[in-house]
């Protein structure tokens, strides 16, 4: 009998028991899913985006299903970093024995820096994931992640404040994602995650107005998967840091595409809504695939599609 394949993975010095995570904003702070499975079996939990001050989020409606996709305009509703540290993190720490990756967001470079400094050195936090898709209020609302220069500026400011492993989450809403990826790695990113949602909108033809209260929303789900796989393929070949792939994963087959495109880990987002067990099923499906094909470790699959055999 062959040995069970090795699923462990190291990303930016962070040891993961396996490479299946759950994506920011789709898994809350993990508590909601405990009635369905034990999230500790996963490689890690990426929290809802945390900002310096609490945010109420965008006015409803915030969701609109589209063919094979979901538009959301949650608007970063979150309790703020202080309440996160006081009320949410302690529960997560107690409940979960898996990596806790705190996703952060801001409206100015200073806000990102301040949130990072508050999270630095806090026991129980394993890494930061930086959402750079947020609008920069000082630059007319253009997303930080939209240009290499502003993306690098945010990352450098955060790098200054923290020694935690720094994962920078790239936006697909750019002309050249490779250029941004290289810029944030140069600025101090230890790993990259991609992709965040694609900017989109929908119009209600009965009401003759936009469906979402915020007009625009982020598109996620199977509809965006080819875009995400392409981005992982390009970025993983052009930087030396590990890539966490996400976008439309609903099972092991999808996840395996991401590994072969160059991802070292994957995250499940919208797939959690279709079935709360998607992440665990993906994990066991990956293990089965490796066993069946005789791979000793998931690491053998990373970038397989461009490395060749």
């Amino acid at each position, binding site marked *: 009998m062959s040995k069970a394949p090795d699923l462990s993975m190291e990303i930016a010095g962070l040891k993961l028991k396996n490479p299946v995570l759950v994506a920011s*904003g789709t898994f809350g702070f993990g508590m*909601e899913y405990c009635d369905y499975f034990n999230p500790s079996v996963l490689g890690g939990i990426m929290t809802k985006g945390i900002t310096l001050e609490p945010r*109420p989020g965008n006015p409803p409606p915030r*969701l609109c299903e589209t063919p094979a996709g979901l538009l*959301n305009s949650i608007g970063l509703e979150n309790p703020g970093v202080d309440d996160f540290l006081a009320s949410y993190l302690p529960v997560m720490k107690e409940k979960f024995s898996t990596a806790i990756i705190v996703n952060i967001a801001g409206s100015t470079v200073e806000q990102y820096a301040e949130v990072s400094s508050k999270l630095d050195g806090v026991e129980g936090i394993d890494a930061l994931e930086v959402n750079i898709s947020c609008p920069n209020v000082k630059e007319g609302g253009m997303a930080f992640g939209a240009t290499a220069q502003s993306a690098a500026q945010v990352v450098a400011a955060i790098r200054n404040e923290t020694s935690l492993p720094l994962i920078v989450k790239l936006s697909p809403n750019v002309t050249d994602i490779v250029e941004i990826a290289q810029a944030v790695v140069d600025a101090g990113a230890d790993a990259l995650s991609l992709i965040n949602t694609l900017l989109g909108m929908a119009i209600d033809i009965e009401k003759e107005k936009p469906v979402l209260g915020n007009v625009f929303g982020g598109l996620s789900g199977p509809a965006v998967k080819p875009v995400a796989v392409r981005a992982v393929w390009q970025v993983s070949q052009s930087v030396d840091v590990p890539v966490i792939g996400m976008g439309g994963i609903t099972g092991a087959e999808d996840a395996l595409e991401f590994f072969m495109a160059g991802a070292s880990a994957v995250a499940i987002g919208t797939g959690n809504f279709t079935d709360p067990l998607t992440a665990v099923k993906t994990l066991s499906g990956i293990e089965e695939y490796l066993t069946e094909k005789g791979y000793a470790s998931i690491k053998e699959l990373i970038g397989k599609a461009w490395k060749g055999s």
Partner: protein
Amino acid sequence: MGVYEARVISHQKLQESAYLLELHCPEIVEKAQAGQFVHLKCSETLAPLLRRPFSIHKTDAARGSLSIYYAVVGEGTDLLSKVSINEQLSVLGPLGKGFQLTKGKNVVVIGGGMGIAPMLFLAEELSKNDNKITILLGARDKEGLLVKDSFARFTNDLQLATDDGSLGHKGTVVELLKESLQDNPTMLYACGPLPMLKEVKRLSEKEGIPCQLSLEARMACGIGACLGCTCKGKGEKYYPKVCSDGPVFWAEEVDLSE
């Protein structure tokens, strides 16, 4: 709460596009409270991608089953209507905060359109607690009130309204409610279309009668994780989640303006 594969025990077409679907799911039945809902996967494929929420219409402990009463309005419910007996459906539940039950009170239960669905389970629970129950049901036409008979055993005062006058009062349930207010009820329960809920809320506030409303919103996770199903709360920029803070809210907790 949990995710279960539930077997279809019966599936009956009631009227032009409304169905009664009975699912075998003792785990949910055991815990279910009136006003709670289940989140159903309407197909085995990824189309549609998301689950669909449905109120628990009734439960049958002996059969270990729960029923939903639903209308076909789009892709998901259309697929659901084609499900046959003995097929399995993936169900999450019971979800959300249900109705707070009263004891020994004079209550009015108001259901409009598909908002009738959660009111049967509620009426049954209220009838166990010595309440004096008035039930007001409204629909476009008499077809929309085919479930009325199941309400009759929980009340001596069942009043019906249809827009076209084909059954009961010609007009709205809100008009029936205005009459019922003369009887000085001490609790109102309502579920139905937004204009109806707004009127019920206005009347409850005017008369100072505590009132519980069951709201709807588009949902993704259904369990409070995605923050997508919000409604407007009272006070500055507070957005309660319909799936986990509701679907039942006290009328004064929510702002129903669009």
